[in-house]
């Protein structure tokens, strides 16, 4: 803009003033954003107490295999004799047969602890986050099975596609240093 310096006419004066105003506005915006607090990054998470296990998590995630998986809060588990997170509503037998299980991918592993208790563990490599077990556990048990966004998989999209499709508004932005909302025994 060498010619500007030689002759300052009206047009150049107006342009320069506008330029200054824009720069000030930009600085103002930056200040406003910074002044609101320098809270660190947030990530998406499901509030397990609001979640209704509708099954959208399995299908709406932008990933082929959803970032949402089932999590088992063992401390909340009642170690029911017949776990309805594991067995279908009317199991033919009380064993690990696929026809007896509610999980479509057989991702829940049932391991004997002591008579008559079994421990149920989620195999996350198989879990698709459909929430069928969560529904069963919520309906008949303690609700120790629940869905969580697994942050080793989550891409942390600016707008989570599952959050947009969540019917109960269970998706929240949570601070990245406390990225999980796990179920607890002492939850009021």
């Amino acid at each position, binding site marked *: *803009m060498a010619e500007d310096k030689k002759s300052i006419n009206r047009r150049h004066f107006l*342009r320069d003033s*506008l*330029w200054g105003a*824009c*720069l000030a506005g*930009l600085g103002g*915006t*930056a200040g406003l*954003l*910074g002044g*609101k*607090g*320098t*809270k660190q*990054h947030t*990530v998406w998470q499901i509030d397990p107490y*609001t979640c*209704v296990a*509708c099954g*959208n998590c399995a299908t709406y995630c*932008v*990933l082929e295999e959803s970032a949402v998986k089932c999590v088992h*809060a*063992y*401390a*909340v*588990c*009642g*170690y*029911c004799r017949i776990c309805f997170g594991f067995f279908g509503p009317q199991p033919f037998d009380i064993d690990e047969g696929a026809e007896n299980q509610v999980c479509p991918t057989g991702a829940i592993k049932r391991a004997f*602890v*002591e008579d008559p*208790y079994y421990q149920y563990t989620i195999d996350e490599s198989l879990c698709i986050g459909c929430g069928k077990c969560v529904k069963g*556990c*919520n*309906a008949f*048990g*303690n*609700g120790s099975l629940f869905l969580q966004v*697994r*942050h080793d998989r989550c*891409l*942390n*999209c*600016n*707008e989570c*596609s599952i959050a*947009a499709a969540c*019917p*109960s*508004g269970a998706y929240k*932005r949570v601070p*990245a240093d406390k*990225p999980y909302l*796990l*179920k607890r*025994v002492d*939850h*009021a």
Partner: protein
Amino acid sequence: MIRLGHIIVGVAVLVSLCDSASGAERFPPPEFESGYEIPSPTVPNPRQTTYEYIDAVVLLVALGLSSYLVLRKRSRRAIFVLMVLSLAYFGFWRKGCVCPIGAIQNVTLSLFDRDYVVPIVVAVFFVLPLAFTLFFGRVFCAAVCPLGAMQDLVLLRPMSLPNWLESGLRLIAYVYLAAAVLFAATGSAFVICRYDPFVGFFRLSGNFNILVLGACFLVIGMFIGRPYCRFVCPYGVILRQLSRISKWKVAITPDECVQCRLCEDSCPFGAIREPTADWPAHYYEKSKKRLALLIILLPILVLLCGWMGSGLEPVTSRMHATVRLAERIYLEDTGKAEGTTDASAAFRATGEETEALYARASNIRDKFGLGGWLFGGFVGLMIGLKLLGVSVMRRRLDYEADRASCVACGRCFEYCPKEHARLKAMKEVTGKT
């Protein structure tokens, strides 16, 4: 009587227990005799936040490099290499999130929602390209934006569009920007992210319809340069306006224009303006009258469009989940809809009063009413300013890159004979020393 009272209290306590517990601790955990220890669930950590700061630094470096390459080095090849690197890093490596285009919504939401704080990196992503544009023109579009790079790569056989079509199509971007701000401000949705046509390619998965949309953009982009950037990108229109007043700008020729016309067809984005002829006197008088008329009509146009925008409120407010839910609950309660949806069932399970929901929904609809006025008004203003722009006669003596439309891709440089002379002179100088 006392007994009956006891029973009632007992039942009430039981009912309230069932209600509040909602499944939790229905069965206390057993006492194990075999020494079994209750395990705790695993919690894989999210990506380190330090990576986010690295992104911000990479953005700063890329913008600086891009400015240098466009304004000093003037090398299309170097700009191209930087563009591919940016596509690889911000696109395929970082999966296209977060980008300055989407950051518009985060910034808007943070201005309207007291509880929402923009993460510092997102704020940097929003502000940095704007600041660079204010100094150096659209160097962000040139070689940093992964969406632009994607389209630039597929450009095979550019066609030029007539001016009126180009200008008219660009209105889409203004409408899109206004809609994105409206939906972000009301906390309804981040539409720019939802309908981002290229992010699916970066992630190599995504919604099928959006992938098809992206593929369409790429196919069109083979013949019409950067269709998303020119006609849709909401960040692009902000950069356009800032680029008009940038301190430095892209110059086709490094020297004086000799009007050889060699660069005339070199721009695939229709950003090169040819010198104007002198306007005949009667034409000048006519356009002066038209300009005055348009200036008078402008407020009327703004008001009219604002009124139309506010009329869109019943449609636009449905973008908000609460409004959708309230409408569904109303339909169910009045017997106009059969059964329940996941959302209405979830709402009824919370036990919240329907009236409270209606109140929340109508509050949001009020916001959309006001937002509709502003949305429509903004669109009207943009249409009006476009008409004004058509009627303003500018005198140009040389072939120039239009400050607003030029994305600083650097294609025109090598068309200029003066540029070749410059390169030759430079080679001689470096050869001698």
